[in-house]
């Protein structure tokens, strides 16, 4: 687990967006599994995102009209999986994040912590090797924030997923094995705990 920290405007989220292929670098290179992301055509970049990266956002970014299970199933449908396979995987993921009993609820019927759990389950849909989390606890109270952090640690240990967390929260950063500090777009410190 890697924490990316730094003051506002230091480029944390930009770095995360570049790694995740949401944005393209104006200079320099991003290489994922030996593949240079900057040169990939749009649809190929999307495929990389779909297969190798899971996103967790500060504001959850769930689709309000879809139930928890449907939100989790969304990337699987996009991959063209069969309905049965999608259903089974969605159930499995919701169980993994401890929300099996809330599968049919809409996001507005869930608490902040629960919404973020759904978002994590969605990010894990195909068990990607990398999870990118942008301030995953930034919009939660301390209890829910701690719960989400515990869940991320648990997943990291159980699944072996690489997790990159952009955070302002020192507690979150200190729970990671490596802390990268940015200032004005440059790495000023790279610490392994």
């Amino acid at each position, binding site marked *: 687990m890697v924490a990316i920290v730094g003051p506002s405007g230091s480029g944390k989220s930009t770095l995360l967006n570049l790694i995740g292929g949401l944005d393209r670098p104006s200079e320099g290179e991003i290489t994922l599994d030996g593949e240079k992301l900057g040169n990939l055509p749009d649809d190929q970049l999307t495929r990389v995102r779909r297969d190798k990266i899971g996103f967790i956002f500060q504001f959850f970014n769930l689709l309000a009209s*879809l139930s928890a299970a449907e939100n989790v199933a969304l990337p699987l449908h996009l991959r063209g999986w069969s309905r049965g396979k999608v259903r089974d995987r969605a159930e499995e993921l919701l169980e993994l994040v401890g929300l099996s009993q809330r599968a049919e609820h809409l996001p507005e019927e869930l608490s902040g912590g629960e919404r973020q759990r759904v978002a994590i389950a969605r*990010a894990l849909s195909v068990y990607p090797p990398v999870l990118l989390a942008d301030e995953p606890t930034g919009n939660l109270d301390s209890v829910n924030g701690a719960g989400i952090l515990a869940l991320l640690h648990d997943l990291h240990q159980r699944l072996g997923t690489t997790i990159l967390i952009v955070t302002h929260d020192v507690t979150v950063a200190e729970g990671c094995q490596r802390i990268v500090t940015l200032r004005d777009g440059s790495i000023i410190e790279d610490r392994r705990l």
Partner: protein
Amino acid sequence: MRMLALLTWPYVRKHRLRSLLTLAGIVIGVAVFVGMHTANRNVGSAFARTVDRIAGKAQLQVSAGETGFPEETLEKVQSLREVGAAAPVIEAVLNTGREGQGNLLVLGVDMTGDRSLREYDLEDEDVIDDPLIFLAQPDSMIVSKQFAGRNGIERGGKLKLETMEGEKEFTVRGIMKAEGLAQAFGGNLAVMDIYAAQLVFGRGRMFDRIDIGLAEGVSVEECRKKLEALLGPGFQVETPSTRSGHFEAVSRALGITINITSLFALLIGVFIIYNSFSIAITERRSEIGILRALGASRGRVLGMFLGESLAAGLVGSSIGIWLGLLLGGAMTPVLGTMVQEVYGAPQAGEGSEAQWWLIAAALGIGMLASVAGGILPARAAARVDPVKALQKGQFQVIAAGENRMRRLVAFAMWAVALACLMGEGVTFYAGYLLMVTGVILLTPALAGWLARALRPALRWLRPVEGALAADSLIQAPRRTSATVAALMLSLALAVGFAGITRATYGSLLRWMNDTLNPDLFVWPTESITSRTFRFPASVEKELSEIEGIEEVQGVRNARVLIGGLPAMAISVSIEISSRRVPVMAVEGDPKEMLPLAAAGKGVIIADNLSRLRGLHKGDMLELDTPSGRTRLPILGVTVDYSDQQGAFLIDRSLYRKLWRDETLNGCRVYLKPGASEEKVKAEIVKRLGSHRRLFIFTNEAIREYILNITNQWFGLTYVQVAVALLVAVLGIVNTLTVSITDRRRELAILQAVGGLRRQVRHTIWLEAAAIGFIGLVLGLAVGAVTLYYNLEMLKRDAIGLLLPFEYPYGFAAALLPVILLVSFVAALWPGEAAVRASLVESLEYE
């Protein structure tokens, strides 16, 4: 104002295309309103101007409908002390046969007395100084400078025209200056001697009209009363301005069509404004939040957005007025020709003319429509919660779902509308308005229900894209409802007109198959509706002597006034009709009514006349004829599509007696069994063609002609429908733009979690298809209601025709692919906009 300049102008400049789309809503609505009214007004005022210019100094005009009256009437009129000058007139419109020159209005006048009423201001030497020279040469003609200029005619030049005596050469003895009288009928005016005109147009010893100048010190009213008392009820004594008012009476059905179309176009415009302002408010939510946080009151925000809609209304209406005037100018000749074909009202367009009242009304209506469309979004803007608007990640749905109150109001409106079905006139039509308003109010709910019903199908089609498309519609039905309503209204209008076309075609074909059975029609005019030239009665006999002809039925159609309103008198030998033409009786038994009518014991009226005037079998039809007021019993009512104002069948013998009119509009010819149509036609031309102007139409050609006129009529309405569909396309583009703006983050999430560009495009396309489909379903349903009311309107108030309700299923089925295609095309640009938006910005949006 300062706020508008500060905040609105930069937004408009940033979103130029969208701002244009917003304006397009008002522009098209106002342009249709102005264009249709301008064209109608141009045609009407051209007619009025012609009447006015021809009238000259005449203060009163004496006429007897279209039938004309015997020459002796002039002496009677001149004998009256109150009459200062009386000049007889024959007025006829004939085709010049010259390409691009259209029709020529020929005025037959008596030069000896006419100059006291009309000024013939000639270009050079005044030939009319000696009217006797003009009279002595019956081939003399004077023409307007405009007509002479357009045709390269000089004084002393020759002009060939078709007359009752075949083609005849006239000598142009003078050219009128391009002012006053010469400007009548768009400048296509010629004047000739009245007695020559009687011969040329087959009027016999009849005049069409007498123009009157009052004696000194006599009032118009005084003279009018004296003349009416002297001449009896068969004559109309009117001022020229009253006469021009008749045009409005005959073009009533057209006026109603124009008003309905304009209303629909404007309503659709309102929905487009609503849509566009909803987009603006969605996009400018954070700006509104900042304004509120900085101390702007709700009222100020409301005022700012209402100011924007007023400004949009002002700009859009101004462009719409300009476009409308152009459109009106372009439509005037088309409409003029149609009015002349259908109603026989002679007129010639004189270019487009701006009417200040229309411009003011259009400006007012355009701005009102714009404010009506902008008021709900402006209210929503005023309700923006500054905290939520400024808080990242917080989304306040402004265009939320529909509410229960509105549903209740809609149902109440429907209940009242149902009750209004029992009513008449305004009450009945108010019912339609309530019915449509109810549907509009319920559109968000109906669109939501239909979207829910569509969801499984869309999901089945594309699990993610389909579900997202349906959910987008279900989530914010008010976002879609404006477009759905616009589409629904335009399609309802289309279905209504298609239904009428179908019913009219069906009924006309049935009527033509059953009753239009003569083999040939011999007419002195190039169309059977024109009544410019007439045959003398002798033509009937001349034709019947031709080998191969079994029977000839002379026809005299004349527009007469019944209770001050025009109707068509069809005078034929009813004895022949009873043998030849099956009667489709609505009231009365044909076996009883026909012998009585043939014996001149009464008249048979058309079902539309019956409905329009509330006349039935057994009632008395009061007719003012040159012989005085006559009351004739109505012997029966039959199905008859001869005239939009209603017709009645009267035996020729009775007509001749009452109207003292021996002339014929044409002859229906029945051939002997086995006779060759071609040989008979050739023989008719050989015997009569050398000394008479005549046209021979086959049965088939007449059917084609009637259907052609009907097609022209409906062609115009389809132009309106096309405009309405165009407006609907704009609506879909607008809605999808709002939808994409609203769902910017949702679409970005879709891409962030692995959605390919094509999958995002599919979502937008499916949403567009769903909007189109929902609009279509509702449009087809409201179209059925519109068709019902259209048919009732035709029956009750316009032309009195009872047309069957036949839903245009074929047309409806054809609309499905058209609408889906239009929706797809409308979704292309928004779809691209959605996939090309920056993912990072979109994910941070809100």
